């Protein structure tokens, strides 16, 4: 099994590692770097729980090899929350709308919505709801997530909240 040196920026920190070519990005983030907020639900790219942001785009980290992240900037759910402890607007929207139950699929949903609403992006509720259809949740019937997305699209949660 060939090994490769990679250099990445993960949640603002430089991370260098020597890894096997076959190591998935999800396992690298969880096991090698310790970001266990990356959840692995299916390992075949359907459930979306492992979604992280790679160079600004939402990516299923179970379908990407860690070697492919050479030079990439990666954000996991742990890196979305600022140092001051405030919740990201997406996290706040999901909490306020009771958008989660067991919470296993939640980090992936947070990252997809965070990627789509980053910067000055103001996607429509329809765009965000379409994005939700790429995530599986077995607990909630998607009701709270849909409410959260509508609140996000309506711009109700652009200010960061300190609760």
């Amino acid at each position, binding site marked *: 099994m060939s090994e490769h040196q990679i250099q990445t920026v993960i949640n603002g920190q430089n991370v260098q590692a020597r890894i096997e070519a076959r190591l998935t990005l999800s396992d690298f983030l969880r096991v090698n770097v310790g970001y266990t907020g990356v959840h692995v639900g299916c390992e075949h790219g359907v459930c979306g729980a492992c979604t992280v942001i790679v160079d600004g785009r939402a990516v299923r980290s179970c379908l990407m090899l860690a070697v492919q992240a050479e030079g990439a900037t990666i954000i996991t759910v742990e890196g979305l929350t600022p140092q001051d402890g405030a919740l990201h607007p997406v996290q706040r929207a999901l909490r306020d709308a009771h958008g*989660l139950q067991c919470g296993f699929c939640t980090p992936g949903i947070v990252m997809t919505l965070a990627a789509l609403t980053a910067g000055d992006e103001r996607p429509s509720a329809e765009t965000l709801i379409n994005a939700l259809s790429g995530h599986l949740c077995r607990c909630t019937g998607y009701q709270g997530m849909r409410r959260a997305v509508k609140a996000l699209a309506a711009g109700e949660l652009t200010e960061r909240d300190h609760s």
Partner: protein
Amino acid sequence: MSAPPTAAGRYVGERVLRKEDTRLLTGRSVFVDDVVVAGMLHAAFVRSQIARGKIKSMDLAAARLLPGVRAVLTAQDLGPYSTQLSTFHMRDVGGPRVRPLSVDYVTYVGDPVAIVIAESRYIAEDAAGLVLVDYEAEQPVVTIDDAKTGAPVHPAWESNVAAVDQTPDNPDFEKIFAGAAHVVTGAIKHQRIAQSTMETRGVLSTPHGENELTIHIGCQSPHAAARCISLTFGMPETHIRVIAKDVGGGFGLKSQPWREEIAAIAASMVLKRPVKWIEDRLEALTSSNAAREQECTVRMAFDGDAKLLGVDVEYAINNGAYPHMPDAGSAVRLFFPGPYRLRNFRFKGHGWHTNTVGLGGYRGPWAMEALARETVLDIAARRIGIDPIEIRRRNLLTAADQPFTTPTGIPMEDVTPLECLDQLLKVFDLGAFRAEQAAARAEGRYLGLGVATYVEPTAAVGIDPLWSDVAQIRIEQSGKVTATLSTHSQGHGTETTMAQIIAERLGVRLEDVSIHQDDSTRGGFGPGAAGSRQAVIGGGAAIKAADILVEKIKRIAAHVLNANPDDVRLEAGLVRVTGTEEVSRTMCEIAQIAYVEPHRLPADMEMGLEAQYRYRPSSYFTHASAAHACIVAIDAETGFVKIKRWICSEDCGVLINPAIVEGQIAGGVAQGIGEILLEEMSFDSSGNPTAVTFKDYMLPTEADVPDFEYIHITTPSKSVGGFRGVGEGGIIISAPTLVNAIKDALTPFNVSWEHIELPLTPSRIIKFMESVAA
């Protein structure tokens, strides 16, 4: 979107935000695979690739030689730990002897025959692939029909009958049917369902000290898991510490540790090293005990007024090779009569062993009672020529009919399905819908309305180990409240709901109450999430324990402030005396007195502010009631079912947190939608699973689930707090509601509906339409 501020001191009934959510949203949760200990090794299983056969030999040499592999263990290598598994029922429930690894005979594809322990999961899987097993394959029995005639799955057994369940003989039964004005029949074949918890099963077992274990595991109760492990290995329960902080869904699958978890624990004890096993999705969709796969035929007899005279049920269920417990539908039998004025009931059920993975629990394991009853009631209404809503009105128990004992002995004392239906019809304009439906049909569009009514047995649900919970509450010297409960959450939000109850009772702020339920050594036994029991029983325990503290606090305050205990009130974190000018003490000051100033306590009072109460509701059953309605549109070209509207009208007694109640209903209804339209755990004729990814096993997505509307009726139950369970009702009632809507939409096609096979995929719907058109 924010939850409304709560009135001072009131938390029960409020949509407060969940205490669990911040850690879950920020990646600071602790699921089983998130736990790492020094020297931890990883397990992968060698599994049978045939459904049935003898193991002639196993060649482990190449696997054992692979660098990074620490051990490859067979049943023999597990030695004394190759033992019979205990079950959720904590007693012998019969059935085949189940061991962690199979010894010399395999009975399903996925049957574990060896466990590889290595430095990483990658290496463990590499090594598992190097194990060569030579089988002498035998012809498997896969379906219920196969089981009736095929050779016994368990060779020592006489047949494939896993269990039989039936009502006592009633010689007059056939006479009732012979004399009936209408006799209606319907049969349903229910597919097998994979619970599909988003977090798969998993365990990390760390042996230490003398014969002690620390176990992190995906479970539905750390206490139940500890007890099962203790019974399985014959170890004292106190030697086993089970920790489960966050669990990504249970739904019945995780009600007890099963073969793989026990094998990993056994391996950790053999090797005296920490061993982790995390199930992957392929394993989950092939080797996790699955659910349903039933056949149910119902005959109903009615008089000339469409009143039910008798119900006759034949039932069969595929138990697979190693069920969590052998089952022939005892709960289906018990609950089948439901909330109807029915006096004559006959049930005959068989459970069958097959060469497939074993039967497990799934939310509402008895749900076939509602699916079969409610869909056949609709067939009857059409046959008799009355509206499906009318047939329910004529047969549902009214308040005046109660108390009523069903023919299976279930007491109905305060059920309200008729009231739920009435409330539903206040927000749903039936006449307007029928007009819209007629207009749509004229244009070749097919709209349908489905309605179903039911009661959900909750709390103890007639199972003894489920009957009690214990709450231990401590008001610390800081004034903060810490409660250890025997409840457990796999998404249920009990850290929030139990805190709401306790905060309200003690008159403290919600943020000052923390709930602990994640460690089997921290509190007393409780069976956790099962039978929609925790709000009722855990909630009752929380109230009773809090009330002990309230009494004590009042006595202390009265003693210190020279007042009457009856004049002391607990509110806003203060202990106040009525009728005096602002005489109050903080909870912190009272706690100080209780813990460190005993001379200021009443003379006969013990120090401290701690209380414990184990609560058992007086009733064996606490019923929740509901009526649901949904509207579908069916595309005649594609057979695609689009759900346009869904109304849930339910009575789960006093609501602790309406948002959490609605979440339970919504999640269940979504699962019911998946069951009726999408999901199927399928096998080929050789017993190979054929839906082993989430591309083939289709869970409902956001696009499949409509927005739900809710109506809450809140008839208090007789339990302390007045709560009723709500965990399983959503899935139970959604299935017949949706089937009835589909049937209604296809009325113009004159489908007989006497035989339904699930799921109702577009191709099956098209077939229904074509069979009649042809």
